[in-house]
């Protein structure tokens, strides 16, 4: 069959289907049904196609979700991030209440410093129990003399997930043997407007993870995960999270939960740290995707497990699918991940997300998936690129198909997809 014959077949079938649909649609009645349902403030009665899977939602969770969302905004973007290069090249302090709009927000301001010499210890920094001292003659300390500011742009509205992506300006070289320190400390609560509602809540970081990667000696890149506790009149609602050790990543330290301020001390040399901020607004789901380049490191990949997990997600229904692409060091496509949101539970506090991972096996990049011990996390790793998909509630229903439902696209996408080496495509996290 040649192309012309195929096209003829396709067009004939399409014409017939369009005609069938016009006869079938009964659009006037369908419209009337929709408008009547809207007028009666009841949902359009649709015949259930599938059994509903998921926990029962209630008003209290909706309220909690809004509080959590606000707390997420406060917790993330009110954090002060202090970066200190122990050899004294510069300090960044990120603080201040964010302002938000749909899609893009101007986030914290970065105060950059000229290289101080020598750096002095900040009395507010707490040490990490058990942390080893960095191999630097300058000592573990941070300078605090800002001389200017650089705006940091964050994208999206800061709901939970609690990951932050902040584009950190180039601070100059990080030399081999240096141990940059990423310090996080909470700022004062701020009032924020989210989804048209103003709310004030106190957010107290409870846990911070810093995932770091080897860099090119110039940038600081890390993946920061912060979970906060919301305090309100009802007595608080905690988000819990346990640190996830990622074998193969450079060692990291986190301060004990509840320590304020707390320090994440990176104990391997030649690291780059970049805090990542990502938020999800109601219209566009993933707001920020970041590529974490491994700098050439390779990690052992576990065997394929399952690609099905039912997760709570803060995505909105409607435009509820995002394609994530992951590029390797050469900018070629390695992964194609298709993530969608399932049932429309927007506003009820939880969302069901179906995550189907279409794994593209490109040459030299085996496609595998690991299911982390905590049911809410799936960690994909290849050449140091980490994509984390998580849910908030470890007790939430997790439905995983016993059999693999993976669709493996065996095409070499690198041939058909324009490499975008400057795109940041990894680091997806979404939590409620």
């Amino acid at each position, binding site marked *: *069959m040649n*192309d012309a*014959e*195929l096209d003829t*077949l*396709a*067009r*004939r*079938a*399409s014409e*017939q*289907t*369009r005609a*069938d*649909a*016009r006869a*079938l*649609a009964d*659009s006037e009645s*369908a*419209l009337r*049904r*929709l*408008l009547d*349902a*809207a007028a009666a403030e009841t*949902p*359009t009665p*649709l*015949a259930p*196609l*599938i*059994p509903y899977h998921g926990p029962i939602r209630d008003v209290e969770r909706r309220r909690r979700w809004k509080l959590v969302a606000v707390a997420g905004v406060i917790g993330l973007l009110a954090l002060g991030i202090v970066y200190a290069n122990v050899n004294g090249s510069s300090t960044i302090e990120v603080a201040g209440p964010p302002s938000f709009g749909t899609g893009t927000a101007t986030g914290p301001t970065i105060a950059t410093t000229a290289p101080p010499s020598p750096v002095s210890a900040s009395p507010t920094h707490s040490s990490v129990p058990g942390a080893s001292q960095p191999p630097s003659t300058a000592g573990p300390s941070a300078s605090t003399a800002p001389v200017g500011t650089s705006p940091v742009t964050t994208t999206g509205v800061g709901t939970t997930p609690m990951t932050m992506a902040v584009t950190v300006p180039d601070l100059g070289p990080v030399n081999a043997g240096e141990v940059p320190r990423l310090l996080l400390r909470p700022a004062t609560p701020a009032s924020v407007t989210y989804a048209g509602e103003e709310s004030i809540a106190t957010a107290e970081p409870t846990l911070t993870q810093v995932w770091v990667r080897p860099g090119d000696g110039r940038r600081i890149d890390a993946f920061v995960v912060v979970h906060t506790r919301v305090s309100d009149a009802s007595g608080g609602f905690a988000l819990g999270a346990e640190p996830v050790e990622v074998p193969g990543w450079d060692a990291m330290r986190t301060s004990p939960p509840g320590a304020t301020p707390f320090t994440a001390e990176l104990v391997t040399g030649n690291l780059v740290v970049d805090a990542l901020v990502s938020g999800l607004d109601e219209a566009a789901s993933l707001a920020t995707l970041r590529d974490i380049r491994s700098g050439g490191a390779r990690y052992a990949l576990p065997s394929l497990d399952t690609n*099905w997990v039912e997760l709570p997600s803060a995505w909105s*229904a*409607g*435009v*509820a*699918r*995002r*394609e994530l692409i992951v590029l390797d060091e050469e900018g070629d496509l390695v992964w194609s991940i*298709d993530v*969608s949101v*399932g049932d*429309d539970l927007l506003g009820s506090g939880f969302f069901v997300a*179906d995550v*189907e991972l*279409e794994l593209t096996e490109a040459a030299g990049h085996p496609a595998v998936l690991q299911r982390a011990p905590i049911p809410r996390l799936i960690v994909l790793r290849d050449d140091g690129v980490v994509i984390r998909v998580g849910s908030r509630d470890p007790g939430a229903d997790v*439905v995983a*198909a*016993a*059999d693999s*439902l993976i669709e493996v*696209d065996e*095409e070499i*996408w690198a*041939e*058909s*997809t*324009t490499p975008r080496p400057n795109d940041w495509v990894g680091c997806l996290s979404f939590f409620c």
Partner: protein
Amino acid sequence: MTAERTGTGAFERFFLDEHPKLVALGLAWTGNRDVARDLAQEALTRAFRSWSTVELLDLPGAWARRVMINLLIDQRRRAERDGKVAEQLGAPGTAAGPDVSGDAWWRAVRALPDRERAAITLHYLEDLSIASVAEILEVQPGTVKASLSHAREKLRAALGGER
């Protein structure tokens, strides 16, 4: 696919224009009348709920198609999952309903992976350009071209024997 931005009247015009097209999309995708109508209704219900945003888009119809394709993919995945779970439990699976399309072309299209199926369906059923399909699927035009190329190869192989 654009709609005048004048409130409920605009939505009604949008609905009447888009509904049969979404039903056609669902019918081509699933071969099931009930599923096609239900999902078209769901997609347009979501458009109605988000109309204040959707009507301001340059291409509200593209938004509706994106939602419809998402729903179709989700429905297919759930049907597969429920079928597998039912099989494990020894119970009857969720009935997908009879395939009424009866057309070899669409049967072959339904065997394609989601991305290729979406590209082929939008390209032929709606006579959309590569750029328009890319806009709806939110991928690069090159990706659409590759999808169509690979899909045509598979369809040629599947249908060549039926001729």
